[in-house]
């Protein structure tokens, strides 16, 4: 299980190769599921619907972030039989089309990896201390938390 918080971009291909080929259990991996979150070019908030985004800045709570993400990985590992998991989350100022987050999970069979990957993202969205601020031509504003993210988390209870 790995957690990385970083300002720099990540090489998606390289990260997935590394998930496939590293670790003593690599011979048991039958499924590798990954999710990549990206910066959208256009806002989808009712406040300024359709504005294009110049930059997206991610703030976090450094002392807490890694602990929170590790706790989510541990919870996923308790719920499903997975082999390994990786979370990379970027912070700082990003541009449209940039990668924000990668979650990757390996398991023997696809069902466990799909579920664990989605679970990790749903929990990350609602309990990891990150905050997004959008800069548009209309000025800067903090992104509002979405009720749909809370609903997505609830279904795992």
């Amino acid at each position, binding site marked *: 299980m790995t957690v990385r918080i970083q300002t720099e971009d990540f090489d998606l291909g390289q990260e997935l190769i590394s998930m496939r080929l590293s670790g003593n259990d690599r011979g048991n991996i039958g499924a590798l599921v990954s999710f990549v979150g990206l910066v959208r070019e256009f806002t989808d908030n009712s406040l300024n619907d359709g504005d294009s985004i110049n930059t997206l800045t991610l*703030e976090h*709570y450094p*002392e807490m972030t890694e*602990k929170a993400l590790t706790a989510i990985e541990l919870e996923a590992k308790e719920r499903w039989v997975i082999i390994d998991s990786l979370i990379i*989350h970027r912070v700082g100022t990003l541009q449209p089309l940039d990668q924000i987050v990668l979650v990757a999970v390996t398991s023997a069979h696809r069902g466990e990896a799909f579920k664990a990957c989605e679970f990790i993202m749903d929990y990350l*969205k*609602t309990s990891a201390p*990150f*905050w*997004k601020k959008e800069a548009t031509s209309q000025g800067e504003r903090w992104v509002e938390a979405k009720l749909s993210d809370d609903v997505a988390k609830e279904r795992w209870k």
Partner: protein
Amino acid sequence: MNINILYFARIKESVNYSSENIDLPKDVVTVTALKNYLALRGENWANLFNGKQVVRAAINHALVDDMATISAGDEVAFFPPVTGG
């Protein structure tokens, strides 16, 4: 008791600083009590901490609810609902 308070994101911008060390009165021992105490600092603080806005809290880097108890030396953080991912 003496604690550290950290503020993040919209709340940090609104109170205009990111952290403070503070001596609390004896009766301020829960997150709710601390929010009420901070709300007395003026209009800006009242707007943040009077309960109309959702303000989440963490104690020593773990999310807590408003009933949580604060102890001397704790790091208490206040922030808006998270929006990462």
